[in-house]
């Protein structure tokens, strides 16, 4: 595998995507909007936290650390880690799927597939380049969103309760899962993009692919699975296997002819 050719694809796709505000606008704007809005909402809602919340969620007797302050903090900790954390993990995937969905079928629609596919590049290099071109912004946005969200939460918890919630072990574990989750999801979307006839079709199917990821926050809400370190470690292993399998299948099943209009 020639790394220079892979990076040439990545560089070209990123330059192409970031030359159009229609693509990078929603990709950056939506996660950043929620990264700012949701912590403010969390802090605001926390003042209405129930009196028994600390005991229920964290197993702490509220009276030990100051009554309602404990309840509010318990709400912020639980809500931001167990519910918003997984949501933020999925958001960059959804938005960067715009690039992934476009990556092959976009070459077909803009009639650049012919020149790209007659260039000296292997299927593996091309496929990996396309995945990385979507995965790199997705991972960059994930980290940015976590930092902004965590920063705002920390600011308010420090201001009102003189304590910092982040960094937190669960968040580190979530971030550790992020690359495998992003590679697996985007890999699937890239496969879709290499097989459909239009960008619209690719976007519709990729939205369906990304949908199951939303299960994670709901699973957490209904406490079906505890978001423990073991859960994240298991998830990491599963996602890593899925990502490798997806990349392998994508390369094996890729056919130049599908991208060339007859």
């Amino acid at each position, binding site marked *: 595998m020639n790394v220079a050719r892979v990076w*040439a694809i990545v560089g070209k796709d990123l330059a192409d995507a970031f030359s159009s505000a229609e693509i990078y606008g929603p990709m950056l704007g939506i996660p950043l909007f929620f990264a700012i809005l949701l912590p403010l909402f969390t802090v605001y809602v926390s003042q209405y936290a129930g009196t028994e919340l600390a005991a229920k969620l964290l197993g702490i007797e509220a009276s030990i650390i100051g009554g309602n302050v404990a309840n509010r903090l318990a709400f912020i900790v639980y809500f931001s880690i167990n519910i918003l954390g997984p949501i933020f993990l999925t958001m960059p995937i959804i938005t960067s799927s715009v690039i992934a969905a476009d990556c092959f079928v976009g070459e077909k629609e803009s*009639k650049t597939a012919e020149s790209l596919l*007659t260039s000296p590049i292997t299927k593996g290099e091309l496929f990996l380049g396309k995945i990385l071109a979507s995965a790199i912004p997705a991972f960059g946005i994930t980290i940015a969103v976590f930092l902004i969200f965590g920063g705002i939460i920390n600011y308010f918890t420090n201001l009102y309760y003189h304590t910092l919630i982040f960094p937190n072990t669960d968040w580190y574990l979530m971030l550790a899962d992020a690359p495998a989750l992003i590679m697996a999801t985007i890999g699937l979307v890239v496969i879709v993009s290499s097989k459909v006839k239009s960008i619209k079709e690719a976007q519709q199917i990729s939205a369906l692919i990304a949908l199951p990821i939303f299960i994670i926050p709901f699973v957490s809400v209904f406490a079906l699975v505890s978001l423990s370190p073991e859960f994240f470690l298991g998830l990491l292993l599963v996602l890593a296997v899925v990502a490798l399998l997806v990349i392998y299948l994508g390369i094996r099943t890729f056919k130049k*002819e599908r991208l060339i209009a007859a």
Partner: protein
Amino acid sequence: MQKVVVAKGLTKRFKDITAINDITFSMEEGSFNLLVGPNGSGKTTLERLIVGLYEPTEGSVKIFGEEASAAPVSVMAKVGYVGENYGLYDNLSVISNLLFFSRLLGIEKRQALERIDKLLGMLGAEEFVKRKVSTLSRGTKQKIAVCRALLANPRLLVLDEPTAFLDPESAEKLREALAELVKEGTTVVYATQRLDELSKFNADVLVLKKGKLVGYGDLDSVVKMIRGIEIEISYLGRLSKEQEKAMKTLGGRLMGKRIVFSIGSIGKIPKLAKEAVEAGINITSITFLDYNLR
């Protein structure tokens, strides 16, 4: 002489349409090969088979001894291709496009910049180097696409109607550059439906009709084979009453901005063209519509 392209029993079907039907031919190193035929005759499909974009349904096509559709990177590095589309990224500048393809070819940036400068200069497109591709005219895009195909000094250059949108001066420059490449040993495959281009090359001609190779040989022998030709003369501006009358007298049928003639042999084309020019018609191209073979 090495055989650069070898096709044997080559057939390509799309569902129930046979686009290329049992074609066998070979192209030698340093040869100029014209693919001619009307629209829908299979020129583009054949070129796409040669550069490996399509897999044959039956038979095979090899380039440099390798199956074209599975050719390794080392073989594809020797191939330049300009398809019926320009193959350029509209949102990127000319230089970004050309540097991207240089990187795929493994050309170092400094060397690539020198090469790009030389190629753009050769085709008179150096002033567009920083322009976004989407802002360029079709003719300029075509020049840039040709530059892209020439970046790696290809040993096999496959072109699909590369002068379709070029002005006559640029088209001539391109033909000169191609002739030079052939002298240096490059094999050129050049698809056209423009009859006025036939005489401008010293080429082997492959005549296609409905996916079949119906004529194959040097220009003179192929020209003698073609009979019952229908051609179309395209022109600029509007025809005056006198010009319309002159064309109708010659047997022409006026169809929008085109005049269609049914003629007995290809040898009559220069006379027709001469009469049209003398009548003051500004001809832009003379194109095959249909023909029969003797």
